């Protein structure tokens, strides 16, 4: 006779394959189920791509109790998220996307596991244009987590490199668990005091890396003397299955602000190492000129961790918001109901992002 409001099972609905990862990510973090419809319904090849299905598999693998239902045509799927147990995993990523694609999903999840998270990923370590390479994740993304108190035991080991298209690389990502994230105020961008970089090459002449370093220095030398670009040449088994090379650059300021850029060789195009290095350097300068305390590719990650903090105000100055970040903010509103306060400085185009944490604590982490 008594009707009682039981557990509400509301499902958030989205369309198209766009921003798929962040929706899966937020779904797992918030515990809300999602349903995505109309995935590439207008494309010649309808439905989810192989790498996306691979991503869903990975999401299912690292969670306990998730269910994924994909429609026959692959144009829609339903995802009920589970909890994050942590522990050791191995996953062979699809070579359609680089490891960065998968790591960008895993990195924000890893600190909220029950046990420390460790995953061995196989696949393409770097690909031009879309996702961050493992170098950038190791040198820039992980330090961004340090800001929020995720520090001890956080590492990414690049065991083997594998360039696109065939891959053959291997990376191990380890992450500790935290109960709460720190609340952060980060408004001082300071002045850039050093520039670091990694020039890698696989299955090409080792001289390529040196050439890249040379030409990058030709621009950067005018600014500061503290430039240290290492060449990272992988040989034999460690160099994967395809030839490739690229340059990842990062600058660090007096207040530990990181800006980064990278350019990689494309599989079927002929580019000189110099072109690639110059392009990467210009990208870095562009990134620096945008200002802010957070690199533009990490705005979403930092914003997410701001919102997942305690019920206090975090405030961070960022460069102009990217479209990815803006969509991310919209999705955050859907999943967590978090609205960010955005104050734009009209002259510098920098944006002060502040929000109140939702008091997200790692419920997975056990007491005993």
């Amino acid at each position, binding site marked *: 006779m*008594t009707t009682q409001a039981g557990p509400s099972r509301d499902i958030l609905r989205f369309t198209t394959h766009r921003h798929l990862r962040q929706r899966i990510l937020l779904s797992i973090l918030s515990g809300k189920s999602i349903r995505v419809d109309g995935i590439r319904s207008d494309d010649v090849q309808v439905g989810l791509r192989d790498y996306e299905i691979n991503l869903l598999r990975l999401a299912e693998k690292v969670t306990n109790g998730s269910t994924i239902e994909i429609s026959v045509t692959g144009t829609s799927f339903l995802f009920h998220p589970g909890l994050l147990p942590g522990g050791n995993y191995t996953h062979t990523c699809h070579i359609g996307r680089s490891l960065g694609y998968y790591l960008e999903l895993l990195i924000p999840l890893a600190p909220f596991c029950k046990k420390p998270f460790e995953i061995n990923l196989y696949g393409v370590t770097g690909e031009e*244009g879309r996702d961050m390479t493992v170098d950038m994740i190791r040198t820039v993304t992980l330090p961004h987590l340090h800001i929020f108190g995720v520090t001890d035991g956080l590492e990414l080991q690049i065991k083997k490199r594998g360039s696109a298209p065939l891959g053959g690389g291997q990376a191990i990502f380890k992450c500790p668990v935290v109960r709460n994230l720190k609340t952060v105020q980060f408004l001082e961008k300071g002045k850039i005091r050093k520039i670091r970089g990694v020039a890698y090459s696989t299955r090409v002449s080792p001289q390529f890396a040196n050439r890249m370093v040379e030409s990058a220095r030709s621009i950067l030398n005018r600014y500061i003397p503290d430039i240290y670009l290492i060449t990272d040449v992988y040989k034999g088994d460690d160099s994967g299955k395809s030839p490739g090379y690229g340059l990842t650059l990062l600058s660090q300021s007096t207040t530990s602000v990181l800006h980064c850029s990278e350019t990689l060789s494309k599989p079927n195009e002929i580019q000189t190492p110099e072109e690639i290095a110059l392009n990467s350097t210009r990208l870095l300068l562009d990134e620096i000129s945008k200002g802010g305390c957070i690199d533009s590719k990490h705005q979403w990650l930092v914003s997410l961790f701001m919102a997942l903090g305690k019920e206090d105000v975090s405030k961070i100055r960022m460069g102009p918001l990217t479209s990815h970040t803006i969509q991310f903010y919209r999705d955050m509103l859907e999943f967590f109901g978090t609205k960010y306060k955005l104050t734009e400085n009209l002259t510098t185009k920098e944006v002060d992002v502040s929000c109140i944490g939702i008091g997200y604590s790692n419920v997975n982490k056990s007491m005993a």
Partner: protein
Amino acid sequence: MEQSHKVHHKPSAGTKHAKKDAANGVDRSGGKGFNPKAFTNTSYRAADRAARRTAEKDQKRLHVPLVNRNPEERKVTAVKGQGMDEGKLPPPPIIVGLVGPPGVGKSTLLRSLVRRYTKHNLNSPQGPITVVSGKTRRITFIECGNDLNSMIDLGKVVDLVLLMIDGSFGFEMETFEFLNILQSHGFPKVIGLLTHLDLIKKASTLKDTKKRLKHRFWTEIYQGAKLFSLSGVMNGRYPDAEINLLSRFISVMKFRPLVFRNQHPYLLADRIQDMTSRERIRENPKIDRTITLYGYLRGPNLPPRNAKIHIPGAGDLEVSNVERLSDPCPLPTLESERRRKMGEKAKLIHAPMSDVGGVMYDKDAVYINVPGSFSKGGDAPQGEGEKMVMDLQDTNRTFADNIQNSEIRLFGHSSAPLEVSQKRTRRAAVPRSGGPMLGSADDNEFDEEDGSDEEGDLYDDDTEGQVDGLNEESDEEGDVRYADSDSENDDLELATGFQQDGKIVNIDDDEDFDDDEIDDIAESLNEEVAEDEDVPQWKKNLSDRAATSFAERMGRRRDLMTLVYGSELSPEEIAAGKTRPSSADAESSRMAQDDLFHVSREENRGDEGDQVKEIVNSEALKAKWDDEDMLDSIRDMFISGPIGEVDAEGNPYEEEGEGFEDIEDGSADGEQGDDGDGVPYVGVKPSAGDHESARAAAAAKKQAALKAKFDETYDDEDEDGEKMDFYDQQKSEMAKQRQLNEDEFAGIDIDARAQIEGYRSGMYVRLEISEVPYELIEHFNPAYPIIVGGLLAAEERFGYLTVRIKRHRWFTRTLKTNNPIIFSLGWRRFQSLPIYHLDDHSIRNRLLKYTPEHMHCYATFYGPVSTPNTGFCAFNSLGEESNGFRISATGVVLDIDRSTKIVKKLKLTGVPYKIFKNTAFIKDMFNSQLEVAKFEGANIKTVSGIRGQVKKAQNKPEGAFRATFEDKILMRDIVFLRAWYSIEPKKLYNPVCSLLLADKGDWKGMRLTGQIRRDEGIKTPLDINSAYKPIERTTRRFNTLKVPRKLEASLPYASKTKILKPQTKQTYLQSRAVVMTDEEKKAITLLQQIQTLKKDKVARRKDKQEERRKEHRKKVGVIDEKKNEKLKEEKRERFKKEGLKRKRDEASAEGKYGKKRRGKE
């Protein structure tokens, strides 16, 4: 008799005292008195001891610093104009719960306290009652019923408990139960109150009782806990002096934030309303309702959108709409409170469920208590509500008429009624320059509300004109709704015109001014102006003004937030810097939103759209960064770049010796703060005068920076390092963060602010909740509190909770695995089926059938996720049926998961059917070869302890296998295999929906099988194999050992059986003859004679004694009979009396009950 006057005391503080001190040259800065030598130590030992004592006291004082999520209390200072902090949100009223068994005097105390604070006499206080207790604090009193559900719910929200104990009776079980509930949900402050002490007549008994109760109380709470005693009742209240003392204790009570309440927003509803339309209820009386709950928010911020909540006793719900209302019981303002004492006007009371001022709310009606004959002209002191109702009579016209005649219509000729939609955007109020534009009519209607509105509207930080305008607007809204609400008369508030809560503060999603809308306004105004020739002066150039202001605003900034959280522009467009959608874009995006006209677009194909890197045009990039000027323009971002300002060419001004602080640093320092005005100039050379001043400023800044750096490097270690220990550091960090939290959103309009940060603690809000079970309204009873508890993101999920649990030592029965128990965990009360287990050698979690005695164990059950480290208590039943202690267990949450790893032992047995040396073939353990294959290599064991291993399945008897052992086993041995069988708890989650019941205590949960059998009268089925039978043990008879004669003969003597025949001959002692001499004969005869004489004597004595005893028994029997008769008489008398008394009590109770009922109807 001569009355003694108060003795004059010399002032020991204050201005007069200070003046005197100054005149006398006394310095009291060192301490209270003026005797510098008074408290020095004479010996070093004493000094040492004193120092150690103070150090210990200091350490005892320290507690783990906790953030307080409620706003800080005001601090009243002597300095006028300071301290009251009127702009700031005051903390919510503290919740004081009155708890105790029935008849202990809770209502009497409540009446007394309310009377003490507000001078109101409440006849039947019900529901939460909020009063202003002083300039800085408000208190919500709530009476707690005697049922467990109320106690559990209230225990989770009260800040202070007034625990009432019947002194004449002593502690009752409920009191201890309540204390245990408190303990497992974070211990709020408790003050004990002893009542009914006047029933104890003897002074020494009273003293002893007090002492005994005090010490018992102290063991429960802490040594030295406050325990008051209240003497008798006068005029239906406790004596004023005692209540005064108590109220003083309440008003200075400090509260430590509790962890759970710091993480969850919550609200104690002081008012409930059904918003469902009458018609729909008439169609289906059991339709899900839409209700509104009112109350002060507490704890962290309540999410502004779709907040998930749990109402204990009703279930999980979602808030569909939150509105901030003006405070119904505000603290006195600075203007009204210049004096030291609080004014009478400021002593407000807010108790919508009670009968304050003769008006009482019930679930669907308002009752007006009219004492005696009612006459309007009577100048008797009117209550708040009464006055409002009387004011209603002043109007001569209907509301509709009022609307018609008022100036509310925006334009004179407009006939369309003003429709106030829910999604009304708040627009800039057009400044009032020429006389009242809006709502002149409501002056006579809402006089007092208006007044209170503006007074209560502490938080509007708009300019005065705007505040007026907005208020008018909202009043207007109220009016329009009156007109509308004629047909649907359900809205109580509107029907009575009783706007106790003041105006509704409108909150919209798109709070900020939309550009289009401003255009719209301008356009519409233009049209209007064109049509109307004779318009007032102020209307004339409205459109121009709107246009210019719009242009100004657009020039000044593009509001990023509006763009990001609006839906007009796609993220790419916003990132590209667009501010308004081009018409084509807008069209397409609108079409895209509309499912009907779904246009196929680029974004539904391809691989793009899920990447963090922006697409880069390398050609453009190259063109941009090939430019030398461009390359140089970012030099100042590097540490080696130019120090100081740069001119147009990017060269630094280096004429002055000391370099400048860099402009970047300047901006980073927050110097440029105000919205783009103080932006550092880049590339434009400043004028000479500016330059001069800038240089001076920069030099000063640099000096400050250098000093800060110096301080940082040198001071930290020696000075600050000692001053700021870890504790202070933590505290200062918390204070800093708190300040930041307050400052960050300080400038924003309060409703826009709520959209970003949520609704803050201390706000009075109205929560609209839809799809509420109708029983909540139907069976609403103000005596049972309605609590709204906010849920965290994780807490809506379900999973297996592993908890550490201990059976309460007062609970008489052990707890059994898979028996349902009721948990009170987080906000929720629910029934679930726990499985108890214990860690077995850190290898596995082994199931326990019963909870261990006096020991913790683990329990795992299915239920809603709760953060680890949350405490809980559990009950076997919540009803009143059991006399004993009802809390069956307490514990804490350890872990949350979707699967469990509990195992129970499973022993498989088998018997050998063939035995070789160390090998045996075992059957009857498994049923198939497949099963055997699964257990190949498993360890097995015989009963006698011979260990072995499963080797391989045999073909012949199905399920038989070959096994090897460490020794030869016997045919009669039983072989067993110890395995572990994993167990999942059953998924039962049965929330205790007690609020939905007509009789709140009558909740029935899942019953045990035994209970069901008992209730249904079903016999327990008896398995014949389970029956106990007497064990029959036949004594084993062993055959005698027979050694063949031949063998016997050949054995050596040592090994020969030595069986002896029994002796047949008499021994010497038996066979000898005894011959006595004469002497001996005589002696024996004599001895025999003496013995005979003695026996005779004893026998005679015994007889005599028996005779005497008989006589005595007779006598005693007579006396006893008399005694018994007397006792019987007494008994008869007593029972007679008791019977009469019971009859009388029953009669009176019935009468009382009847009266109550009558009162309610």
